[in-house]
Each structure stands twice: as structure tokens, then as C-alpha cells.
């Protein structure tokens, strides 16, 4: 494929994802679903799924529909599946959340809500897996392999989740009840570690090399990183399912998975260091500088995990560990990359069609990095403060940190909207003859 197409609905996915992120931050600031409380508490389940499905998975799917074709230099298997997938994911998540709220007594009892949510989410993620999997499968090289392993992990995550939903409704029999009783760590690791982390790693290899003009990481090297991560997920899912089946303790399986996960994170750090060291563009744009803070957060989660295991308090501080993983590493990276991807796609949509006919700005001219820096700084400082507040057992301080994160995210969203509206492009170049201003929520071309 010489040149790819713009995915029409990527912006719609991003808008939906950011809306869910604001909802999650509002819940945390209001003290609903505090990360340090019991993971199985209905309010916590609401918060966790708003973050993991609504925010992170929706943003990741939108980005992948645009970038998997770039990774494999092949067109997307079907652009027509992307909007129905978003509809199913959104409807499924709403039903799932309603089911959790009914469990917690916030809504009238509705045992069918959770299975309905599960069926809709299976259908939505099924379309995503089908579309992206068939696209990447045709040329599974380099970073595309990470996406394929990520999609396999998503299959496992969704399967566990669906069993849980049916079990919570009392429709899954004794086997479902056994899986629900002990399988939650497997579901969480497959989702956060396999689906979201491995996929983010894979896409980052290509984006970082592309935007910094660095040579691609050697295939042999990145394969080793992926092997460690893939084995960690396989050990968790395969070993975990076996352990649940024969009523064994999960400790041995989780220890092996943790060691492999740490190895993967260390190898990824080595790969990233190579990309940054060998880059041709020495000056780093804002999205790269902010991505470094998310990589530091990933390193921080590894150090925190080791420290908590060493002193035997990981179960007590699982919320803080998960919070830093989700908001420092994954959300930080997604926000930093969204800032760049939106500018890049908006440029293509607005100025691509008039290239050669009129002078056009650069992608960087669509963004005001100096102004945006403070919102990212507020966000990251608040995330790290929130982690410390959770470790210290200070719920009030955590709510203040969540409120500060909300301020940072509002600022970032405001900057993204300004990019989409071309508000920072100098007037002579802003809308040359023949160019059409983009729609906020979808691509016109």
C-alpha cells in the first residue's frame, strides 16, 4: 500500500473516550469508587470499567483503526465495522455500568443488565478484533505483532469478563461461580498488561521512530520484549485458568507472570533508550517530552511493585499500584499521543487535499505547545500526588489530586479542541482556498 486512508471515525472514538475519562475523574473526585477500596465493590467496578473500557480501550481502538494500516502498510480490513463497533461498545458499557449500579443498590435490581452488557461488549470487541486482527494478520511484522498479541489478550479479557457478568447474574453455574471467585486478577492482568500495555508498546515503537526520525528497533530485539510480555500474559491466563480448574492457589502463577512482566518492562526500557539515543531529531516535541513522563511512570510502577512485594504489602496497596499503572503509564501516554495524533490527522484532513495548490502550515503550527505544557504538568503531578495519597491512606488528599487531574485533563481537551478548530494556525495559512474546516467529531474526507 503506497498511502493509507484516514479512518473516518477515529475522532469520534477519541471524543467518546475523553468523555468517559472526565466521568471517571468526576467519580474519583467525588469519592465514588475509591481505588483503595475492595475491588469487587460495585462502585469500584463502575469506576474501573469506565476507565478501562470507556476511556482506555475506546481511545486505543480509535488509534488502532488509524495506525494498524500504517504499521502493516495495508488498508484496514473494513472501515464499515468501526462505527457499529463503537455503538456496541458504548451500549455494552452503559448496560454493564447499570448492572453494577443495580448490584450496589443505586438502581433497581436488574439481573439481566450485566449479561446484556457482556453480550454487547463481546459483539463490539469482536468486531474490533476481527477488523484489526485481519488487517494485522496479513503482514505481522515488527510492532504489528504486539497488536496481535494485544488482541489475543483482549479475547481472554473479554471472555473472563463475560463469564463474570453471567456469574454475577447467577446464570453461569458452579464453574462460572468458581471463575468469578478467583479469576479477577487474571482478567485484570490480561486487560491492563496484555491488551492495553502490549498494544501501547507496539504502537509506540512505530510512532516514536516516525516522529523522531529514529531507525526502527531491530526486529530480534523487539521480539524478545514481546516474548517476555506475551509469556507473562500466557502464563497468567493459561496457568491461572488451570489453577482455578484444579482449585490450586494462584500465587505461583502470578509470581512467574510478575517476573516475566518485569523482564518485558525492562527490555522495553532498553528499546526506548535506543530509539531516543539514535534519533535524528534532537529537539523533542511536547508529546515526546510528556511520553517520557509516562515511561517514567511505567518504571515507577515496576519499582513500586517490587517494593510492595518485598515488604509484603502489595495486597494492601493494590489500588495505588493499579492507579499509577492506569493513570501514570497508560493514560499519560494516551493523552500525550492524542495531542499529537489529533494535530496530525487534522492537518491531513484540512491541508492534505490542497497540497501542491497552496502554501500550507506544518503539523506543529496547529498546536500551541507552550500553553499546553502546563496542563500536562498539572496532570502528571496530580497523578503522582494521587499515588502517594493512596499509599499514605489519605482519601481526602486523593480526592484533591483527582480534582487536579480533572483540571489538567480539561485543559488538554481544550487544547485538542483548539487544534481541531485550527484556532492556533496563523491567519494567512489557516484556511487556504479549497481547504475545508474539519468537523470536531469525525473526518469529512
Amino acid at each position, binding site marked *: 500500500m*503506497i*498511502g493509507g486512508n484516514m479512518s473516518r471515525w477515529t475522532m469520534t472514538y477519541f471524543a467518546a473516550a475523553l468523555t468517559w475519562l472526565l466521568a471517571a475523574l468526576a467519580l474519583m473526585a467525588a469519592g465514588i469508587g475509591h481505588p483503595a477500596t475492595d475491588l469487587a465493590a460495585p462502585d469500584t467496578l463502575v469506576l474501573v470499567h469506565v476507565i478501562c473500557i470507556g476511556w482506555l480501550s475506546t481511545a486505543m481502538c480509535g488509534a488502532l483503526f488509524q495506525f494498524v494500516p*500504517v504499521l502493516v502498510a495495508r488498508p484496514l480490513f473494513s472501515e464499515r465495522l468501526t462505527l457499529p463497533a463503537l455503538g456496541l461498545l458504548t451500549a455494552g458499557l452503559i448496560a454493564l455500568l447499570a448492572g453494577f449500579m443495580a448490584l450496589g443498590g443505586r438502581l433497581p435490581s436488574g439481573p439481566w443488565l450485566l449479561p446484556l452488557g457482556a453480550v454487547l461488549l463481546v459483539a463490539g470487541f469482536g468486531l474490533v478484533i476481527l477488523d484489526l486482527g485481519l488487517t494485522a494478520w496479513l503482514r505481522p511484522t515488527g510492532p504489528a505483532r504486539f497488536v496481535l498479541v494485544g488482541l489475543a489478550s483482549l479475547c481472554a479479557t473479554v471472555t473472563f469478563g463475560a463469564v463474570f457478568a453471567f456469574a454475577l447474574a447467577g446464570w453461569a453455574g458452579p464453574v462460572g461461580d468458581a471463575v468469578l471467585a478467583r479469576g479477577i486478577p487474571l482478567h485484570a492482568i490480561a486487560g491492563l498488561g496484555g491488551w492495553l500495555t502490549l498494544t501501547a508498546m507496539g504502537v509506540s515503537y512505530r510512532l516514536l521512530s*516516525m516522529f523522531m526520525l529514529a531507525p526502527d528497533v531491530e526486529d530480534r530485539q523487539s521480539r524478545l520484549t514481546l516474548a517476555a510480555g506475551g509469556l507473562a500474559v500466557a502464563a497468567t491466563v493459561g496457568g491461572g485458568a488451570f489453577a482455578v480448574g484444579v482449585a490450586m492457589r494462584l500465587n505461583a502463577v502470578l509470581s512467574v507472570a510478575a517476573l516475566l512482566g518485569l523482564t518485558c518492562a525492562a527490555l522495553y526500557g532498553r528499546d526506548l533508550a535506543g530509539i531516543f539515543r539514535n534519533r*535524528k531529531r534532537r529537539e523533542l516535541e511536547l508529546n515526546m517530552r510528556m511520553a517520557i513522563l509516562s515511561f517514567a511512570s511505567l518504571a515507577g510502577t515496576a519499582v513500586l511493585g517490587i517494593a510492595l512485594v518485598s515488604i509484603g504489602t502489595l495486597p494492601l496497596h493494590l489500588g495505588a499500584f493499579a492507579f499509577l499503572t492506569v493513570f501514570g503509564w497508560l493514560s499519560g501516554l494516551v493523552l500525550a499521543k492524542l495531542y499529537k495524533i489529533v494535530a496530525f490527522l487534522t492537518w491531513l484532513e484540512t491541508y492534505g487535499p490542497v497540497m*501542491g*495548490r497552496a502554501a500550507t502550515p506544518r503539523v506543529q503550527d496547529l498546536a500551541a505547545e507552550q500553553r499546553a505544557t502546563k496542563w500536562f504538568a498539572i496532570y502528571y503531578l496530580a497523578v503522582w500526588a494521587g499515588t502517594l495519597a493512596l499509599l499514605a491512606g489519605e482519601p481526602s488528599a486523593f480526592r484533591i489530586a483527582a480534582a487536579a487531574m480533572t483540571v489538567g485533563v480539561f485543559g488538554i481537551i481544550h487544547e485538542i479542541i483548539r487544534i481541531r478548530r485550527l484556532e492556533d494556525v496563523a491567519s494567512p495559512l489557516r484556511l487556504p482556498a479549497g481547504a475545508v474546516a474539519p468537523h470536531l467529531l469525525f473526518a469529512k474526507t
Partner: protein
Amino acid sequence: MTDQLVERVREALRVVIDPELGENIVDLGFIYDIAAAGGAVRIKMTATTPGCPATSFLREGAQAAASAVPGVVSADVAMTFEPAWTHDLIAPSIRASLGFAAVN
């Protein structure tokens, strides 16, 4: 006459920029060859990454810019990734503006 047309086309292509690097495709070394026979111009060009949505726009932009040159009857632009583009093809005069390190 033909050489002059080729140079006029080359100059016209400078209006097309790589969106990310912000420099024109001639100075970035994306233009591998320009040939003219009569008023028919054939351009062979590349881009940094195959599969990127910008690639199609770069090709169409080059086509539009070349077609607008007086004396050009037809412009045919072929995109190729053989050989692959490397940083060495960038004109030395604009390397510094891209923030390239001197050692690189």
C-alpha cells in the same frame, strides 16, 4: 528547453511540504527523478513511511504542483519505496532547521 522545464517543475514542487518535518519535498530528498518529454512530465518520488495517510496527499500534491507549471501538458507522479528514503538525502542546508544533531 527540457532541462529548463525540469527545473521549473522542481521549483514548483517546493510548495509541497512534508507535514511532520515542515520542509519541502525537494529539499527533503523525496524527489528521486524528474523527466520531461515534450510537455509530458514523469516524477518518481518517495516518502518517509509506506502506508501513512500523508503519502497519498504528497503524491497528489506533487501532481497538482507539477501540472500547474506553464508548458506542462501532463504530469505523472509515481510513488516508490525502492530505494527507501534515508536522512542522508536531506539537503545539508536544512538539516539544522530540523534540529538534527551535528554528529548525525
